């Protein structure tokens, strides 16, 4: 039964050992993601959405429950999952090319000749529209471009799942919109399976097939899951006047601000 799903989260719970004692961050998380699906995790800050993403990435392990990615239990980080961090996390002493090549070499090195590895790296940077900045260092390019390199690095290793942790959170609104459009194009082109953490309602509705809405922490869990049945390819301008779009948007806003309002 589970084998038909690409990503399975089963009864997952995560506790942290803090100075104030045992802290239950998330509990009873159950989620099934199909191959090629785009899922957004949304919730107020502190709801444990990043905790859940870290569990998927294998950067931390669940206190209870099981996570399965492409038929294999998640027991630690691994290159079958591509992660894009909020703050790009590029190595400043390497060029864009070398940053991506580091990942490519790790996954395909030894199996493929160097020319092929180079080609993969160039292709990944081309996919995110950065062919012109390939030999620049991270400090020579803009924040939006850095995040593109981060996406290129994650996609270059052909992961089973792409995990995005508020990838556009640190960018200005215009750059963010532009990168969202790019991401739509890239995901359509690569047919990637994506799990993305966000706190931006429009971003979630625009990009996702399903929106997983989380209740407030501590002991946060999945409150509702919203199916976004908007046709693809999606166009930002056309959706601005689409009644369905506004319906979905309203559903998320209601969940966040009416049902699970967070005391500021």
């Amino acid at each position, binding site marked *: 039964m589970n084998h038909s799903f690409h990503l399975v989260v089963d009864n997952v719970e995560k506790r942290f050992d803090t100075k104030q004692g045992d802290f239950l961050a998330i509990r009873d998380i159950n989620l099934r993601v199909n191959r090629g699906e785009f899922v957004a995790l949304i919730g107020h800050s502190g709801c444990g959405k990043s905790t859940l993403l870290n569990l998927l990435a294998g950067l931390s392990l669940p206190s209870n429950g099981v996570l399965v990615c492409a038929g294999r239990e998640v027991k630690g980080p691994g290159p079958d999952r591509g992660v894009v961090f909020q703050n790009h996390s590029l190595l400043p002493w390497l060029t864009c090319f070398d940053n991506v090549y580091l990942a490519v070499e*790790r996954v395909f090195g030894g199996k493929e000749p160097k020319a092929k590895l180079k080609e993969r790296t160039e292709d990944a940077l081309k996919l995110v529209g950065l062919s012109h900045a390939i030999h620049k260092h991270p400090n020579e390019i803009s924040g939006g471009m850095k995040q593109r390199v981060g996406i290129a690095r994650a996609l270059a290793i052909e992961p089973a799942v792409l995990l995005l942790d508020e990838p556009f959170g640190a960018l200005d609104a215009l750059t963010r919109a532009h990168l969202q459009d790019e991401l739509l194009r890239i995901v359509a082109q690569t047919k990637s399976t994506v799990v993305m953490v966000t706190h931006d309602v429009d971003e979630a509705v625009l990009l996702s097939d399903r929106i997983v809405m989380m209740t407030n922490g501590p002991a946060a869990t999945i409150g509702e899951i919203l199916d976004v049945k908007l046709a693809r390819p999606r166009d930002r301008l056309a959706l601005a006047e689409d009644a369905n779009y506004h319906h979905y948007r309203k559903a998320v806003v209601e969940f966040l601000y009416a049902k699970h309002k967070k005391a500021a």
Partner: protein
Amino acid sequence: MSNAITLPLVASSNVTERENKRSAHEMFVETAKLTSEETSESRATREAELANKMRRRRERVSSLVHATVPALVGFALFVLAWQFLAQINNQIPSPAKVWAAAVKLFSDPFYSKGPNDQGIGWNILSSLKRVGMGFGLAALIGIPLGFMIGRFTFLNRMTAPIIAILRPVSPLAWLPIGLLVFKAANPAAIWVIFICSIWPMIINTSVGVQRIPQDYLNVARVLNLSEWKIFTKILFPAVLPYMLTGVKLSIGVAWLVIVAAEMLTGGVGIGFWLWDEWNNLVVEHIIVAIFVIGIVGLLLEQLLTRIAARFEFNEKS
């Protein structure tokens, strides 16, 4: 300390020079353009641009003046105070007398009349050689040790108390141990350099390793990089600036210590020479030695600052 004074000076003078060359060329181009036929409006804007450039240039020159004048004034006051002291205490040689002695010493720096009478050049070189050996050994052991202490918490907790106790020990307290073990003055002096200059390298390198941003390590983790790749692609480049700061501190300490060590051990070297001139009561030579020690120390530090600047990477923006 010395960086703070000299570095901006050097940097700003370079910039001004370049700026001058550039703007001179540009002004030539500008005037050439001005002679061709142009509307009065574009001529006005060009003239305004030109005036702007001139103003910027003047600002550069004045900033250079602002940087050098106080230094020169300070130096003049220093010499004046010294002259005054020499006047009231005739045992202290005047600046002119010291200058004359220095000129004489440096006119023949590499003579050799037996082990106890050699040119000042040989003395400086012998001291630098000792510093180089002691410091080199310290780097060879201290830097890898720093990496391991930074990487493994257990090792860190194991070594921290020992380092905390041994680090503040005065350099000369180590000398008898060196003499005891090596039974000779020269290796004992190198030993003292080694033991005193190793701490900043261990400490800075290990702190550098501990301060590597978690983001970089997360990259290593999600990609499952091998330990070798982690070291060459992440640890080493991230730690390099910290490491070089440690090296810079160490070389400063090493140069401080060599003079004291040589005073006690004898042989050839700037510290020994200083002590020898004290025994001969040639005070102007003592003052020359003080300046030589200061200037060589400054040059060593400048050299390492330059090297370190090459490896700085910009994390921001």
